[in-house]
């Protein structure tokens, strides 16, 4: 049965209260804004891409506990990763929040989730999947955009 703890794990609450990399990245060369019109959540993802490697990443915005923690952990996880690694992780993360624990089994060749695994409880709350993935969709838009500002909406 779903419990408070299965969704709002301690790590999530910690990142909600103290979001990491929560700042404007002045040297960013990629940037995108994400918006969920349903609940008003807004996130801006800043990326400094050196070649195909994310040398620095940050975010700003306002949202619920899930979306804030997701953006915070995203920035922690992706710093130093390549674009391809980031995309592979998004795919893995998307499976996690839509399919849950079932997607956690042995999956050779797929990237390790690491701290992102704390979002496994989201799959039990389908209405909250968009909260968890908003920053990831925004990341993808930022990476595909060179120079300008991309905008994504969950609707």
């Amino acid at each position, binding site marked *: *049965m779903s419990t*408070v703890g299965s*969704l*709002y794990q301690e790590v999530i609450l910690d990142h909600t209260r103290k979001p990491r990399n929560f700042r404007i990245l002045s040297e960013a060369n990629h940037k995108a804004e994400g918006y969920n019109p349903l*609940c*008003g959540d807004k996130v801006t993802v800043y990326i400094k891409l050196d070649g195909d490697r994310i040398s620095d990443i940050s975010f700003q915005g306002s949202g*619920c506990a899930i979306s804030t923690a997701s953006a915070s952990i995203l920035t922690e996880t992706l710093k130093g990763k390549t674009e391809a690694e980031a995309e592979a992780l998004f795919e893995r993360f998307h499976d996690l929040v839509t399919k849950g624990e079932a997607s956690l089994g042995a999956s050779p060749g797929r990237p390790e989730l690491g701290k992102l695994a704390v979002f496994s409880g989201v799959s039990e709350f389908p209405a909250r999947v968009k909260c968890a993935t908003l920053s990831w969709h925004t990341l993808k838009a930022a990476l595909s955009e060179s120079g300008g500002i991309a905008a994504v909406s969950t609707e």
Partner: protein
Amino acid sequence: MSTTSEALEQSKDEATKTQAGHQIPPVLNAPVLNIPVLNVLPVFDVDMIREDFPILKQKIRGKPLVYLDNGASTQKPKVVIEAIRHTYLTEYANIHRGVHLLSELCTKAYEDTRVVLQHFIHAKESREIIFLRGTTEGINLVAQTFGRRNVGKGDEVIVSALEHHSNIVPWQMLCEENEAKLRVIPMDDSGELIMEEFEKLLSPRTKIVAVGHVSNALGTVNPVRDIIRMAHSQGVPVLLDGAQAAPHLKVDVQELDVDFYTFSGHKIYGPSGIGILYGKAALLENMPPYQGGGDMISSVTFEKTTYNALPYKFEAGTPNIGGTIGLGAAIEYVQKIGLDLIAAYEQQLLKRATEVLSEIPGVRIVGTAKDKAAIVSFVIDGIHPHDIGTMLDLDGIAVRTGHHCAQPVMDRFGIPATVRASMAFYNTLGEMDVLGQGVTKLKEFFS
């Protein structure tokens, strides 16, 4: 109480004791409970009412269901479920053209429902009741027929700042198409419309005023009598969106002198996909049809079609027959309890919910109009409404979070979303306390 019939017997005794000249509203639907007709009930017996709604006995995530999302949709009493079941099991066929018995029986049930609705809102004639999908379609019908014909270039349509999207967008579409202008009655910080501003907006350019009777996001009961009087003094017709009003307070369209009134079945304990539009016959007769098709015609050739009389002119195609009959059962159920009694009881729920939530530090109630229906919208400092909604859901409490399809209302208060608890007469005072406890608990969790 051990059984429903015992409870009723008990109430019957109490009823005779208290019949000291008081006007006591009739209550309870005997067929639901399968017991002899009971005419009066001295107090509002919510336990007995809850017996009529099987879904309320459910546990949600292991906790008793506390259903406070009635503004979105209401639960269905057994009579409604039974009426639909009965129709499809024994009395179903297409209506109006059949010469066989089933079609005649079904046509009668369908048309009898029109009369039930006529009496419910006290319309002068049953042909003034048009069945359609719901409030949204009712508003679209008026915008696309009355509106298209009467709102031209440079004309104006007035709505209010409290509207939900379905009483904004159809008018916006019309205004865009016909180069007319949408004007908005502003509201104050309590969520009440500023009537002086309405007076200023009314002009010879105004062709229709469309406002909600009760706001879905804040619960404000609008001063519709004043709105209608002021609009009529300029010869402007008024449409009232009754989606949040018809289930909770008595509506008398003749007394209001309202020109169009529309509401949805699913918010008044009936099925979804069915609702009504009331229109004054003189207005409806002068409006072009909404959709073309079967049933709305009296004769068709490839050269010329003549349209059917009211209300069929506006009911193209085979309608939602089962849903209409279900709606009739819902309306009869509500009438037997009595809207005056329902409204009075729901005011107690509103009072308790408001008190309980106001006592919790950091909780801010959005919408504090003097005259409110049983809707409480609130926000909590530092906790996002979606997290509040999920936490309450884990306690079995169903509320709505978000912008409630009323983004301009949220913008007015500078917030992206609220948590909304919307009550119905099957809710209990105890449930208001459970809501308060749930909010207190989640506040501690996120602190």
